[in-house]
C-alpha cells in the first residue's frame, strides 16, 4: 500500500509539473475552481438570501434597480438582489451539472467496458440501445421526460429528477468512446499475456483495461460536465427548473418571462448567461488539455527514466 501511495504521489507531482506550464489548462482550472469556490462560500458573499426583497426608505420594493442604485448587480422585477441569486444559483447549477455528469460518466464507462470487452450479443444489445438514444434529439426527450415525471408527483425533489434524467440519458457518447478504446486495448498483447497467466475477466478489466482508459474517462468527464451544466440551464430556462431553488437557467427564465430585455434590465439577464459561459468554457479548456496530456504515449521515453537514475546516483555521490 505504501509503495502504491508513493507512486501515486510521484505521478501526481509529475502531472502537476507539466500541467502548471500549460496556460490553457491552468485558465480552465482557475475558471472552474473559482465557480466552485463561489458556490461553496455563497452565504459569505452576500448579506441577503435569494428570496429577500430589497426595499427603499418608503418600504416599497426596489424593482429593476440598476447596479448604480443597488448592490453590485441591481435587483430583479420583484426587488430581489441579482448578485445573491447569482452566487446561490451557482450551487444549484453546479450540483446538478456535476451529479448528472458523474452519473453519465459512470453509466457510460460501465456499459462501454461491458460492450467492448465481452462483445457478442451483449455488445449488440447495448450498442443498439445507444444508437436509439443517439438518434432521439436530447432536449425534446428530456423535456418530455422531466415534465412527465413532474406530473407523476414522485416523492423526489425536482432537482433529483433533473439530475437523473440528464445523467441517465447523456452517457451515450461516453459509452461509444470507451467501447472503442476497450476494443483496441483488449487485442493488445499484455491482455493476452494476462489471459495466458490465468487471469479472470474481472482481474483483466480492473488491472489492465481500466488503467488504460482512466485518463480518457477523466478528460471526458470534465467535458461532459460542461454539457450537463448547459443542458440543465436549457431545461431550467424552458421552465423545468425548481422555482424554489433558482439556478442560472431559472434566472434566465425569470428574466425572459418578466420582460427584463424590453425593460433594458441587462443586469438581470447578462450575469447568469455569462456565468454559464464561464463554467462551460472552463470545463472545455480543462477537459481538452487533460485529454491531450493524459495520453500515455506522450508520457516519456525509456532513456528519460535512465537519465533520472543517473541523476540521483550523481546526486548521492
Amino acid at each position: 500500500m505504501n509503495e502504491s501511495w508513493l507512486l501515486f504521489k510521484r505521478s501526481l507531482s509529475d502531472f502537476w509539473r507539466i500541467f502548471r506550464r500549460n496556460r490553457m489548462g491552468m485558465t480552465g482550472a482557475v475558471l472552474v475552481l473559482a465557480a466552485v469556490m463561489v458556490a461553496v462560500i455563497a452565504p459569505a458573499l452576500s448579506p441577503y438570501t435569494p428570496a429577500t426583497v430589497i426595499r427603499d426608505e418608503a418600504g416599497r420594493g426596489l424593482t429593476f434597480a440598476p447596479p448604480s442604485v443597488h448592490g453590485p448587480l441591481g435587483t430583479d422585477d420583484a426587488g430581489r438582489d441579482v448578485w445573491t441569486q447569482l452566487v446561490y444559483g451557482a450551487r444549484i447549477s453546479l450540483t446538478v451539472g456535476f451529479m448528472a455528469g458523474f452519473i453519465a460518466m459512470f453509466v457510460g464507462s460501465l456499459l462501454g467496458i461491458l460492450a467492448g470487452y465481452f462483445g457478442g450479443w451483449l455488445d449488440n444489445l447495448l450498442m443498439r440501445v445507444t444508437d436509439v438514444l443517439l438518434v432521439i434529439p436530447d432536449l425534446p426527450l428530456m423535456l418530455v421526460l422531466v415534465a412527465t415525471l413532474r406530473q407523476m408527483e414522485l416523492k423526489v425533489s425536482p432537482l433529483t429528477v433533473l439530475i437523473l434524467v440528464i445523467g441517465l440519458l447523456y452517457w451515450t457518447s461516453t459509452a461509444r468512446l470507451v467501447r472503442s478504446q476497450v476494443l483496441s486495448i483488449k487485442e493488445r498483447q499484455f491482455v493476452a499475456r494476462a489471459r495466458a497467466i490465468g487471469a479472470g475477466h474481472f482481474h483483466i478489466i480492473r488491472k489492465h483495461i481500466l488503467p488504460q482508459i482512466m485518463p480518457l474517462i477523466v478528460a471526458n468527464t470534465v467535458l461532459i460536465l460542461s454539457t450537463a451544466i448547459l443542458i440543465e440551464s436549457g431545461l431550467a430556462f424552458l421552465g423545468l427548473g425548481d422555482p424554489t431553488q433558482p439556478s442560472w437557467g431559472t434566472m434566465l427564465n425569470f428574466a425572459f418571462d418578466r420582460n427584463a430585455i424590453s425593460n433594458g434590465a441587462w443586469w438581470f439577464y447578462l450575469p447568469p448567461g455569462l456565468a454559464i459561459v464561464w463554467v462551460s468554457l472552463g470545463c472545455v479548456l480543462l477537459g481538452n488539455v487533460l485529454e491531450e496530456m493524459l495520453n500515455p504515449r506522450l508520457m516519456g521515453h525509456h532513456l528519460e527514466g535512465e537519465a533520472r537514475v543517473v541523476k540521483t546516483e550523481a546526486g548521492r555521490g
Partner: protein
Amino acid sequence: MPDSPLLIVENLVKHFPLNSSLLDLLLRREPDVVRAVDGVSFSLARGEVLAIVGESGCGKTTIARTLIGLEEETDGTILFGGQRIGTHERRLRAGLIPLEAGAVGTREQQTLPRMSLKHLRQHAQMIFQDPYESLNPRATIFEIVAEPLVVHGLLRKREERIARVKSALEDAGLRPAEDYFLRYPHELSGGQRQRVVIAGAMVLEPELLIADEPVSMLDVSIRAEILNLLKELQKKRGVGIVFITHDLGTVAYFADRLAVMYLGRIVESGPTAEVLRNPQHPYTKALLSVVPVPNPRLRRERIILQGETPNPLNLPGGCRFHPRCPVAVAACKQSDPAYIRVAEGHETACLLVQPA
C-alpha cells in the same frame, strides 16, 4: 510418472472459420476455413527444448496459443503431465459438441484425468514475441512480475511475495531487483523488458515454457543474452521449453529437438544435430541452404524456393509442399506422404525418402 513426457500433442488441428455471407448460409455451404494447424503431433520430455521452425504463416504461433488455451483447438488431444487439457475436450464433456465415436482420441484418452485451464496456466507459461507490447504500460515492474502470484492466490504474505519477485527478477538478470520494482515498462529497454517478461513467466516456477519468437524483436546484440538466460533457466530449473522461431541459427544453439513446419504440418522432426547434419525433407534442405555462413569459402549452393506459400484456405492436394518442391515427382500431386523413420527419433514426411 517421472519418465512420461511432460507434453504430448496428438493430431492437433486448428481451423479458423471465415465469416460466411448470407448467401452461403442460404445455400447451406460449408464455411471456408483457414487450416492454420492441420494435424500436428509432437511430444516434449521434462526439461527438454523443442524448437518449432517454419516461415511466417505456417501455424507456429497458433500452436503456441492453442497450447496455453488462448485458442480453442478444433480437434486433437493435448496431454500435459498425463492430464488432458483443451477447451474442445471440456465442451465435449459438457455435451456442447456431440460425441462421435473416434472423433477425438481414443476411448482410453477420453477417460484420462483432465486439468482445468487455470491449473494448466499455473504450470505452463508463455513468453510473447514483442516485449514492447506484452507489458502493461501502466503497471510497475513489481506488479507485472507479481501478477501470476496474485491471479493464482499464491504466497499471500507480503514478505514472501516480495522475496519471490526479487529472486525471479534476479534470476532473469535484473540486478539489483529493488531498483526495478517501482519502474514502468517505458523506462526499460527492449532487452530489459524481455527479461521482465521472463521473470514474470518464471515466478510461478512452471514446468513448461512456451516461447513464441522471444528474441525476434530484439537487437542482435541482445538476442544471445536472452537465449543464454533461457538456456540457463532450463538447465537450472529443468523447465521444458517449446521454442517457436523462424531462425534456424538460434535453433542450432538452443534446442535439443527440432520440428520443421510447413503449412500447418510438421514435415520433419528429430534431434537438432541429426536434422541439421542430415536433412531429409526438401523443405528443410532449402531452409538450411540459405542460413548465412560466416566463412565465404564455405559457400554452398543455395536452394531458393520458387513461388509463394499456397493459401491455407485452399491447400494443394497430395503433398502440400509439391507446388514449390524442387524435386517433386508426379506421385507428389496424388498422395499425402506419411511419416517415415530415417534414424533414431528422426522422422520426415516425404515420398522420396527411403526408410532406414
